């Protein structure tokens, strides 16, 4: 049993000059065989492992990560969480995820610093306004909180936004999801890792999967940089490399991989207490607890695996942000970076069985999968344990590209997070 994190453990450890904290998870040698191998130690992979143990009692599980856990998109994203998606299928999945987030710190006994500070989506022209109102209504019909704000409401809520008539991007109103907000991205990965480890799951870092072994149409294990590991079931959860890893098992996926960038400014005093998003100008802004302005940009339009930031995007991004919030114009950028986001043609994820027996894939979350982390792990664990999808992820199966039942979330997800 792991000792519980609490005010008392904090005090006790403070007396020992914080030398006595035990490791949050072990670093075991891989066993020769597991019931389930999860490839990819991002939030989604770790959540899948945790719910396999917690909900289905499957604990002979390894999470195999080529770098360090959370070092992929989980540790690179702008941490915006919301569930205001247009279509019923997405609304159900993302809201279930948000509900899990709401109890996650307690469930994991790890403070993921969820801050439901509200997420605004700005309308800059009449068309935006109509589209946003339509969404707000659709979202409310699905029982999810969402409301329309007037320009005056927006100005009152975010005084630093340029809401003047002659602004470069006039603000005609906005939608608001009050339950939306941000969370600590590393905390989500670490919390799931610690809780999964406590239930006996092996988290194996610095171990790259280089091949997927099959016997005919059945998966039998993986080849890794640390040798062969057998498994009855293998799950691919490798955002940024979903199609690359799936190709190791001979699968072809409807996924393309693009760089998505973000950047933070130098830290300043608190000036923004909610999340501001504008799909039209590709700008997403919040302020971190350290005071940095966290700003997300659009994707580069070409396929790339390099995780490199490009000047063109930074420039566009800054042009947009400084028009929306002019007082930011003299801030310096401290860091900028990119993550590789795997996108599907309908901007919705794939959480699915595959034509290979015992092989499962969870990917294509594109620019917006951080908010989906708990829900994704929960439904994927169900899919792996029962060998059939849960009702919540059945619409997100691979077959939808053959049947044509796409879930077009371009408006909610393509550029927005």
């Amino acid at each position, binding site marked *: 049993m792991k000792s519980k994190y609490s005010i008392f453990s904090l005090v006790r450890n403070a007396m020992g000059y914080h030398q006595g904290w035990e490791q949050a998870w072990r670093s075991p040698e891989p066993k020769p065989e597991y019931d389930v191998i999860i490839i990819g130690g991002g939030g989604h992979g770790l959540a899948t492992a945790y719910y396999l143990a917690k909900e289905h009692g499957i604990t002979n599980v390894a999470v195999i990560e080529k770098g360090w856990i959370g070092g992929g998109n989980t540790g690179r994203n702008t941490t915006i969480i919301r569930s205001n998606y247009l279509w019923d299928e997405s609304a159900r999945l993302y809201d279930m995820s948000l509900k899990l987030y709401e109890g996650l710190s307690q469930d994991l006994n790890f403070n993921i610093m969820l801050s439901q500070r509200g997420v605004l989506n700005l309308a800059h022209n009449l068309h935006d306004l109509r589209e946003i109102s339509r969404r707000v209504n659709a979202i409310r019909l699905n029982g999810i909180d969402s409301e329309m704000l007037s320009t005056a409401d927006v100005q009152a809520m975010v005084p630093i936004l340029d809401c003047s008539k002659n602004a470069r991007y006039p603000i005609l109103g906005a939608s608001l999801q009050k339950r939306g907000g941000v969370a600590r991205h590393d905390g989500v990965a670490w919390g799931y890792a610690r809780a999964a480890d406590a239930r006996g799951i092996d988290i194996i870092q610095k171990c790259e999967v280089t091949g997927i072994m099959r016997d005919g149409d059945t998966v039998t294990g993986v080849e890794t940089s640390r040798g062969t590991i057998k498994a009855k079931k293998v799950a691919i959860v490798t955002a940024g490399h979903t199609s690359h890893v799936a190709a190791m098992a001979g699968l072809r996926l409807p996924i393309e991989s693009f760089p998505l960038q973000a950047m933070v400014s130098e830290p300043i005093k608190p000036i923004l207490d909610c999340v501001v998003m504008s799909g039209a100008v590709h700008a997403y802004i919040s302020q971190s607890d350290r005071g940095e302005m966290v700003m997300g940009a659009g994707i580069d339009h070409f396929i*790339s695996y390099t995780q490199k930031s490009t000047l063109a995007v930074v420039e566009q991004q800054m042009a947009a942000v400084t028009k929306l919030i002019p007082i930011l114009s003299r801030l310096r950028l401290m860091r900028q970076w990119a993550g590789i986001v795997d996108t599907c043609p309908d901007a919705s994820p794939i959480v699915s069985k595959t034509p290979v027996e015992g092989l499962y894939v969870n990917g294509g979350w594109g620019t917006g999968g951080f908010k989906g982390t708990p829900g994704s792990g929960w439904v994927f664990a169900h899919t792996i344990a029962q060998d059939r999808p849960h009702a919540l992820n059945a619409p997100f199966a691979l077959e939808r590209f053959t049947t044509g039942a796409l879930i077009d979330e371009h408006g909610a997800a393509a550029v927005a997070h």
Partner: protein
Amino acid sequence: MFLINCPWCGERDEEEFAYGGEAHIVRPKDPDALNDEEWADYLFMRKNTKGNYLERWNHAHGCRRWFNMQRNTATHEFGAVYKIGEKPPK
């Protein structure tokens, strides 16, 4: 920032170009003969290669012509530039 070598205009800034994705995807000759799997493959499935990739680009803010280019998606190294309809160089 890329400098892309348009076969008609020479080296130009990346910002002038639009991306056209994977090259050499052939439109089905007899669409009625395709089943749903084959349509899905044509419409949605992509190689998405990590490494040398053959892609289409359009010099959208220049001569507005399409061309093919080889580019390494893992290193951003550029290879051969060749015209639409031409076979990729070996």
